[in-house]
């Protein structure tokens, strides 16, 4: 799972893709996951990190993270061709 490295993420939750000129806002959980992706963490590592820090369960996290990745793909923030890695 490779996130576009040029993407600028600010503390306020503002996400800017300089290649397409699109801007987004994300909630803190979204920002955390994007930051983990930028550090090349795997999906499993992301799941574990979320489960460790938050009051939730594995099924919910798997489902929500997968859906979040779908959104990132739709917004062209993840390179579609590399999503089969990991």
């Amino acid at each position, binding site marked *: 799972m490779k996130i576009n490295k040029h993407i600028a993420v600010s503390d*306020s*939750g503002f*996400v800017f893709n300089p290649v397409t000129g*699109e*801007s*987004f*806002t*994300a*909630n*803190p*959980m*979204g920002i*955390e*996951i*994007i930051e983990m992706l930028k550090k090349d963490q795997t999906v499993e590592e992301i799941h574990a990190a*979320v489960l460790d*820090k*938050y*009051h*939730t369960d594995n099924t*919910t*996290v798997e489902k*929500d*993270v997968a*859906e*979040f990745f*779908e*959104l*990132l793909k*739709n*917004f062209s*923030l993840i390179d579609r061709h590399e999503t089969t890695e990991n």
Partner: protein
Amino acid sequence: MEKLRYERPLIKRLDGNMPNKFGMRSDYTPKTHIEGVAVKDLIKQYGSPLFVISERQIRDNIRKARKAFETRYPRVQFAWSYKTNYLDAVCRTFHQEGSWAEVVSGFEYDKALHNGVEGSKIIFNGPDKSSADLEKAINNNSLIHIDHLDELYKIQELSKKQNKTARVAIRVNMDTGIYPMWDRFGFNYENGQAWTAINKIMQSETLELVGLHTHIGTFMLSPNAYATAAYKLAELARNIRLKYNHEINYIDMGGGFASHNTLKGAYLPGTDISPSINEFAEAITTALINSDFPQNKLPLLILETGRALIDDTAFLLGSVITNKRLSDGRRSTILDIGVNILFTSFWYDHKITPAQPFTQYTEDTVLYGPLCMNIDVVRENINLPLLNNGEHLVVHNVGAYNMTQWMQFITLRPRVVMIDTNHQEHVIRDNETLKSLLDLEHVPDHLTKFDL
């Protein structure tokens, strides 16, 4: 270390024309308690979904309404509109507060009797009153509001047969400048039907014309329309006085005051545009006081206010079944609350708030009910905080019509709990069970057995 509250990750594209609420102070505050009782505990104990009614709010509302009218007019009587909510506990709360009963069917009439309301304090409205219903009502000295000529003749016949005077009023429909004009009920004012009916009653030996009734519409936002209606009824009363030297006892202005719900398609929310009960009271009482009634003979003013007294006393508690993203990217949330129990979601955008704390992050969401039916949409679009599966939410202003128009469809109807003024909970209607429905059914012998 204590784990933090989980919120699903969310990212939204910023569109120039899209208002976004990120960073703004939250639009909602969670509704965690009702009358001091935690929503979480209520659901744990009584299940989800669940209707919860505040007895305190009912009493506050009726007292405020009475005050609004009684400070402006000497003789006022409220009658509880059974069809709006005829759960016995609700009706009896109103009766304890001095309200009579206003019923529109034989079933509701019997319910009022069962609740212990004296026959003479039951107002019997509506187009469908059977001969048996009418006989009972005549016998009990109830106030019968005549809807059409056939009914007038029927009452005349029955009262003669019973050799008892029937106390009657006519329902009058009229143009009050509002749309739609409710001309299907009662006798029209403008074309003289109402005057004709009055003459027939006055000439009958067994009918006593005790009042005049109107009910100009529903969810009315214009107090002025009531003033117009009151003037027209006063005009009829004056004509009766002139021609027959007869004073009617009461004017019944019906109901129809808007509640604070927001009608679908309205630009501004109901909380902003619905007139207060004081505004309605001012319009109606001013019209009556300024009319031709002699000051010492002002008629009793009867009000059949339903919705405005009960809507904000009840909440519908529910839970999130799942979150789904639709094919077009929209977020949808499936609740255990459907249109089967939230009938009013067809015409209101109900206020819906989560029952637990949340962050300021929100997403446009379609709210679906649990029914396996395409019509089961509680809300086409609502901007809601991010809810997790199993979390609870509260639908506000559900007291009117939902607990009478609800459907037993696909699933069973839930419990209704009333919280009393000492914060004690009482189940006032049990949830339906398979048995409660099967009790009504009969299977012919030849259909009892089958092999599959």
